[in-house]
């Protein structure tokens, strides 16, 4: 089928071992699983405020994120892989966010988008109802600064997350490997 012409070293993890009849690919199972998982992350539509509009811009045709694998945005957490927290989290919303995160199936990843999700943002001083950062509620993998961040910044963050998954450095993977090598 000519697989060794299509196979690019940087794209699919593995080495090509040349043999007389063609070639075979040698790889580690973990690397193949990480490659597959990172190229098909389905986000959950979770937008509380202004950063949600920039997320919708990224979903539309000009800055398209489905070319990176984020094809279908699920509305239910049970079928989603990554939750993009776009917007401010307030005290009343924090238990809801926790519940959504708990309903997601493993492996799951979290991106905190915008200044409000990182640390409370412009609503840091003199507010009584804002949670100063979404990582008080759930563990976060990638932070995107900006108020709101440009769509290209969100795309950069998605690609960074994919890189983290391929390298085995997200919180999920570190947690799993600590079970295997205690």
């Amino acid at each position, binding site marked *: 089928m000519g697989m060794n012409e299509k196979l690019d070293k940087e794209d699919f993890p593995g080495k090509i071992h040349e043999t007389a009849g063609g070639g075979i690919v040698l790889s580690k199972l973990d690397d193949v699983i990480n490659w597959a998982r990172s190229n098909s992350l389905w986000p959950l539509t979770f937008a509380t405020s202004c950063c949600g509009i920039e997320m919708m811009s990224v979903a539309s045709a000009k800055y398209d994120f489905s070319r990176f694998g984020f094809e279908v945005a699920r509305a239910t957490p049970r079928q989603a892989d990554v939750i993009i927290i776009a917007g401010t989290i307030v*005290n009343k919303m924090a238990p809801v966010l926790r519940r959504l995160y708990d309903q997601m199936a493993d492996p799951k990843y979290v991106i905190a988008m915008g200044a409000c999700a990182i640390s409370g943002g412009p609503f840091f*001083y*003199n507010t*009584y*109802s804002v949670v100063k950062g979404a990582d008080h509620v759930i563990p976060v993998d990638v932070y995107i600064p900006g108020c709101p961040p440009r769509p290209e910044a969100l795309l950069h963050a998605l690609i960074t997350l994919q890189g983290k998954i391929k390298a085995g450095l997200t919180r999920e993977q570190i947690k799993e490997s600590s079970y295997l090598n205690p």
Partner: protein
Amino acid sequence: MLKEDLKLKLTDILPPIGFEEGGEWLNVNVPSGELKAFVLQLRSDPDLLMDYLFCLTCVDWKTHFTMVYHFSSTRYRHNIVVKAKIDRTNPEIETVSDIWRTAEMLEREVYDLFGVKFLHHPDLRRLIMPDDWEGWPLRKDFEDPVNMIRL
């Protein structure tokens, strides 16, 4: 109707009220016990016909509260501001939600943020803060060392 005509008309309706000077629209001070009767007159009088309540809020002056109501008429296009002083230790006032339906949610918001009780309101409970929140956030003496980081 112009500000001066409104002033004359209102002194006919309910004499013991005060007018405040300055401001873009006519500001009327009404004692809180007579507020309901006054606004009912504003609504039903054929020369006034104030059928649009567009802003209902409360201001905390540290010694007392002031309820502020902004009315407008869709027929004559005049605006008026009605203010009522209420006591700070036990803030209570009659509801106007049976006259203007928009006041139901607006009064719930004032109750939630200031603690003002509206008598005969159909459903007075917290609207914006969580149900088990203690304290009235927008009062000037509200302290919350856990959540608020002061600059």
